[in-house]
């Protein structure tokens, strides 16, 4: 096995040895690829909402009852809730007639209509939610149900991709979710909800 490693590295060395010069690492600013249209000084949640809607995301904000009512309105009455969020949302959910479990049982994957977990952050420029292992109580609960709700607080919103990269959390599984899961494999027709959520909610808890 180390033989193959050494063989490959030797080939690479031999391939590069004859080069008289190597291309230098170019100079550029971190925000070189940031869309100039973004207003960095404006309200980041407003900017986030605008961009999230462009990618068919569903931004909501308010007290826990707002989310509970929305779920009820969508006719979603059974799902998963991060145990750490339960003290905040439990009462409102129960009042809206939504039953939640705090352990995701993979054997009953089809029974969860929604999953509520915490977001690590959001990115205004792209309308993306940032999920991590540290803040996601169950990867499957944030992925398998048709509706995923990521709960977010003000102050957790990055202005742009460059900023989010700079402050990337140390975590083995950082995922930027930009709108619902989608495909255009069949005749280029956009279909949402392939393997991941068909509805991606960003809930700003006030």
């Amino acid at each position, binding site marked *: *096995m180390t033989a*193959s490693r050494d063989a*490959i*590295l030797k*080939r*690479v060395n031999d*391939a*590069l040895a004859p*080069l008289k010069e*190597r*291309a*230098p*690492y*170019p100079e*550029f600013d*971190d925000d*070189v*690829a940031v*869309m*100039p*249209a973004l207003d960095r000084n404006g309200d980041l949640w407003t900017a986030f909402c605008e961009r999230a809607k462009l*990618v068919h995301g569903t931004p909501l904000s308010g007290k826990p009852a707002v989310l509970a009512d929305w779920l009820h309105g969508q006719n979603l009455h059974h799902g998963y809730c991060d145990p750490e969020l339960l003290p905040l949302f439990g009462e409102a959910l129960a009042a809206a007639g939504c039953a939640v479990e705090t352990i*995701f049982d*993979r054997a009953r*994957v*089809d029974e969860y209509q929604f999953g509520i977990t915490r977001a690590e952050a959001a990115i205004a420029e*792209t309308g993306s939610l940032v999920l991590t*292992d*540290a803040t*996601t109580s*169950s*990867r*499957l609960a944030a*992925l398998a149900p048709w509706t995923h709700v990521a709960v977010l607080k003000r102050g957790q919103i990055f202005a742009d*991709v*460059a900023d989010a*990269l*700079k402050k*990337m959390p*140390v*975590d*083995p*599984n*950082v*995922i*930027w979710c*930009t709108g619902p*899961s*989608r*495909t*255009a*494999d*069949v*005749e*280029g*027709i956009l*279909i949402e909800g*392939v*393997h*991941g959520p068909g509805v991606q909610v960003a809930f700003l808890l006030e």
Partner: protein
Amino acid sequence: MHQPIDQYAAKLSAGKRASVYDGTKSGYDARLRSLNTSYPTPDHLRRLAGRIKQHTIENLDTYLPQVEARLRANGVSVHWAVDGGEACAHVHRIMEARGAKKMVKAKTMVSEEIHLADYLEKRGMECLETDLGEFIIQIDHDHPSHIVKPIIHKNRREIAASFEKNGLGSYNDDPGVITARARQFLRHKYLAADVGLSGANFVSAESGRIVLVTNEGNSRFSIAATKVHIALVGIEKIVPRDRDLGVFLNLLARSATGQQLTSYTEFIGGARSANQPDGPEEMHVIFVDNGRARVLADDCRAILRCIRCSACLNVCPVYRQASGHAYRAVYPGPVGAVLSPLLAGDNFPEMADLPKASSLCGACNEVCPVNIPIPDLLLRLRDRGKREHSKVAAADTPPMGAFGTLANHPSLWKAAMKTGGLSALYPAFLMPSYGKAWVRTRGMPKWRGGKFRAWMKTRKQQASK
């Protein structure tokens, strides 16, 4: 003899050609719209990305050991594979060590390149494609014909028929129904699988993070539901630092599908964390050479910058007419016309016709997010095909000996120009065979030669007046 790619294109059904045309055109339009509405000067970004990548591949001797050390520090097992066979053997060994029988596979071009599914199935293991397009390819025993849209050559009726044949419900060609059925079928497969396999769009040498750029969520599911994650990574996939991703992520999704970012951008830095109930207990990265170091030694090494966005396929007039399967290799289109002959190694002469499947219009270079000078590389490979006396490379090319003699002898040239007008009267059936092959698919231009000398003469006379 015609070039193989022409022969293939000539036999392509009108329906397939229409599918490919529509798919490539919509991809092309989306790219243009997205880049131009986002940036005043998208070209600047493309050139910058090209320079970062060129720097990276010219310094792989530094970056490969660096990324290996980072990965190990992140608790990832690193393996090296000289060729496809060795890469498959690594995967097989990792699975056997876990007593694993079932793999769910996210989209990776490298796995196509090394024929992983065949290898594992022959050894009694299940290897299931989970990307919708790739899944359809698998149940059809077909091959992908486009890098981003693998089933660009199929229409919904064909897909509905294969779903029906494979027991995935009665015939229904609504794309929404097709997708929902695949969703339902595949989610139970993820949950029952032992191993999740992915590729990598980028690997950061700085942090050892593997970056996956996807839309459907199948790679997320593969990495959330299974206990082992294996990533197959071509040795050219490295970027020096995390900050470089700001450039590449913004360009890749826009160039591929016209999205600002794909639905999911995943930064994988190892096995799951201790308090996370779902996801792999171990992660393996297999670095695959399989001909890449040889490409690095070639003066066409710039092709290793490629980030597999498919923009060059979408814009290419030859790809649009011939479709991806005409390129007889995993990588079709302009990128494939350069990469496939180079990766073929000693079999280069068999693939040497591919660099000729281009009108050298330059569109591929213009759209390429890493600014690869594809037309230049194609010319270099044409030259090499000629020098290596490849038969397929010579097909359809009229011998240039006569032209060379004329061009070297001014008096002969003059005479030829005077009589050239007669070519319009020359009946095609009297032409030598190479001439016939040439005019079968091309019209002869109206003769306009022989006027330059006369023009020059008058000018000189006027000037001296």
